[in-house]
């Protein structure tokens, strides 16, 4: 289990992209390695990959904020609670191997989960309020005890905004739509973020 790996379990759609990017960026900024399954993988391969990513990650971030449909015409999303359950199951069934594994559960509102998934009460559950800056703050604050030298959330948020400008400009120049979550693979996004942050910190 890699102590810098963070398994990410979240929605993969364009409306969530505004939260996923700052989530990935904040992890890269504090020198952690986001582990995220590509959406293009087929069902069985995807489940095995998720299991592998969970096994290799000391930390997991589960965003359950899309338990409800975003629009009246949409259905709720069950992938996130399902993968969260796999993660909890692995930890409970292998308490020695995963003794140091830690979970951060994200929600839109602080106490809404109690009405729909009360079994997870007692875990670290934080609300990002669908706000990108708040996403950076809750993630940064959660990792603070593990890394006393961690930068302030404001520093990460300011850097993220500058990155966002470069991200839009570069993707447009390459013929991609920067608002499309599928424009690049997640591994591309993380690789580009990491390269950008490395140079930004040297300024």
């Amino acid at each position, binding site marked *: 289990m890699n102590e810098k790996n963070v398994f990410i379990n979240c929605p993969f759609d364009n409306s969530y992209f505004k939260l996923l990017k700052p989530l990935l960026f904040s992890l890269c900024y504090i020198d952690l390695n986001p582990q995220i399954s590509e959406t293009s993988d087929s069902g069985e391969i995807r489940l095995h990959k998720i299991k592998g990513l969970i096994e290799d990650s000391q930390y997991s971030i589960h965003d359950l904020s899309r338990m409800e449909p975003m629009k009246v015409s949409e259905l709720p999303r069950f992938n996130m609670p399902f993968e969260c359950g796999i993660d909890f199951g692995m930890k409970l069934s292998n308490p020695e191997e995963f003794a140091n594994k830690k979970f951060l559960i994200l929600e839109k509102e602080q106490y809404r989960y109690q009405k729909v998934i009360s079994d997870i009460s007692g875990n670290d559950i934080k609300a990002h309020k669908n706000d990108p800056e708040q996403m950076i703050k809750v993630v940064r604050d959660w990792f603070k005890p593990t890394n006393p030298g961690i930068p302030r959330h404001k520093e990460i948020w300011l*850097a993220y*905004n500058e990155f966002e400008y470069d991200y839009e400009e570069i993707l447009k120049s390459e013929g991609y739509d920067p608002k499309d979550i599928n424009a690049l*693979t997640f591994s*591309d996004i993380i690789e*580009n973020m990491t390269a950008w942050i490395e140079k930004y910190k040297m300024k």
Partner: protein
Amino acid sequence: MAKKATKSSLTSKFSKAASTNSGRVHVVPSKSGWSVKKEGAKRSTAVRQTKDGAIRAAREVKSSERIIVHKKDGTIQSNNKRG
């Protein structure tokens, strides 16, 4: 279907973008109002209660050539030469 970009070209563009200073000043939403941030700076040079106030403060930054105004989610609202 996600396109797989060539590693060298795209990643080097990101590295180069983060390395260079192009005289851009960013107006960024924050919990305390609107921050004015020079490119590459780790802290705000000014914080104003309103977006208009922050844009005015950004225009006063001597080295600024372009002013980038961000939306609440960090995306770009406008990108203008300093007027």
